């Protein structure tokens, strides 16, 4: 990895850290539970690493590891988004019935 690449990654990390702080601290307590499952779903993005691992046919060990990783990450992605949506739907329906 070139040093330029490393520095780019550090920039992204620094900016993401500020964003994380600002964005998360604006979430009201009302939505803290959905927030937990939402970030969970999003961090399932490690699926992209797992997919390459499972599909690159590097050697048997790698492929097996890859499959396990794909399964675990997919559980998080699919489960996370679905359950978040299930919760948010509950919150959203309230707007109509308000008052």
């Amino acid at each position, binding site marked *: 990895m070139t040093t330029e690449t490393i520095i780019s990654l550090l920039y992204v990390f620094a900016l993401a850290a500020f964003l994380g702080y600002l964005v998360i601290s604006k979430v009201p307590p009302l939505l803290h539970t959905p927030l937990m499952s939402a970030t*969970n779903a*999003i961090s399932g993005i490690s699926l992209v690493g797992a997919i390459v691992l499972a599909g690159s046919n590097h050697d048997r060990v790698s492929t097996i590891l890859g499959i396990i990783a794909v399964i675990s*990450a997919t559980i998080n992605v699919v489960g996370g988004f679905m359950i978040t949506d299930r919760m948010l739907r509950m919150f959203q329906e309230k707007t109509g019935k308000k008052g």
Partner: protein
Amino acid sequence: MQIPYLIEITYLVASVLFIYGLKAMSHPTTARRGMNAAGIGMLAAIVGTLLHQAIVTYEWIIIGLVIGSLIGAAMSVWMPMTAMPQRTALSHAFGALAATIVGIAEFYQHAGELGSFKMTAIGFEVLFGGITVTGSLIAFAKLQGLVRGTPVTYTGQNIVNVSLFIAAFALFVYLIFFPVGILFYVMVGMALLFGVLLVIPIGAADMPVVMSLMNSYAGLASAATGFALNNKVLIIAGTLDGFSGFILSILMCRAMNRSITNVLFGAFGSVGTEESQVEGTMREVSLDDVAVQMAYARQVVFVPGYGMATAQAQHALRELADTLAHRGVSVKYAIHPVAGRMPGHMNVLLAEANVPYSLLYELEQVNPEMPTTDVVVVVGANDTVNPDARDNPKSAIAGMPIIEVDRATQVIVLKRGQGKGFSGIENPLFFKPNTAMLYGDAKDSLSKLTTAVQQA
């Protein structure tokens, strides 16, 4: 444009949509739209990845995706809302497992050629990941009741833990300079072991804080994966996740008036605390009396707590509240920030029961109204309404903000018996002259109250 850059662009799009999605979580009306956008981002990133030129066979990928989707979907559809804490703990284990495995494979494939930066990233990845995998599994087991929730302690525990931590860390530093295969796997093993040791001495009740910390570790493991794979969307998503867990654990600790170190390393209430001398007697009240009081009150405030969650009483509560509202009683719900066992626990359960969120009031909003409230009904809450937190500076929960139900004209407490709350301390509220106890399972009592109010 070549494929690699097309992939990169899907990742950029995913990053932007993730951030947008979490930003939209700042309000319930925009949250769902935001998460849909984030989902689209995720899809884009996955489709982009499938174009990756290193991929030669798709069968294993597809098998993995299908199995994972089925499990994930099943978990989300059939899981009761009350099991959210367990589910969350489990999903941290999955997330961390994926990150750890990717890290291990990266090392396994390139052990010889790893530069020190990449090795550092992989090291963080498997350390954070390993701790989170086992730590979250233990948390899950405790929350689900698979193992006993009581803390497992022994003398010298902290010394063992700290030594293990130092050993793993020393190994890590050594590996950066000399990436030797066997030692790497030893380090992974140590991280897994450390996760177990870290969580077993913590009681089930403290699990929410541990869970949030695990959340933050899982996020950091993902971010480290991003550094190892030179993948920016992983860094962004991981960092957001990491911050979310961190901020939530801070909020919880602050609301419980404890420090994170205290949660992790201190036995709860072990020193220097003192329970206040309880005066007065606990007065039981009949169901019909309560029904009449509520039916003719001007304002009734419900204070749900962990007991509502265990009793799954949210629907029964909503029915009672609706019945009262129908009679012209002004009904409010007072939500303490750490009521239940998870941030936002009560909100989600009440939302599930179709309670409009405009009726949910936070601590600061509802406390000033207490003196003018006729009847407060405490539904399985205990610590969050314990006046000792306010009045007794020596109490184990001294300084924790509470819902000051004792200032109301009449307090009705719904609980099953003499059970203590999460902190295990006595609650003087129950002995006050204006407090009356209605024993029984919360769901049961609430349904009966609804019938009684309808007849009142």
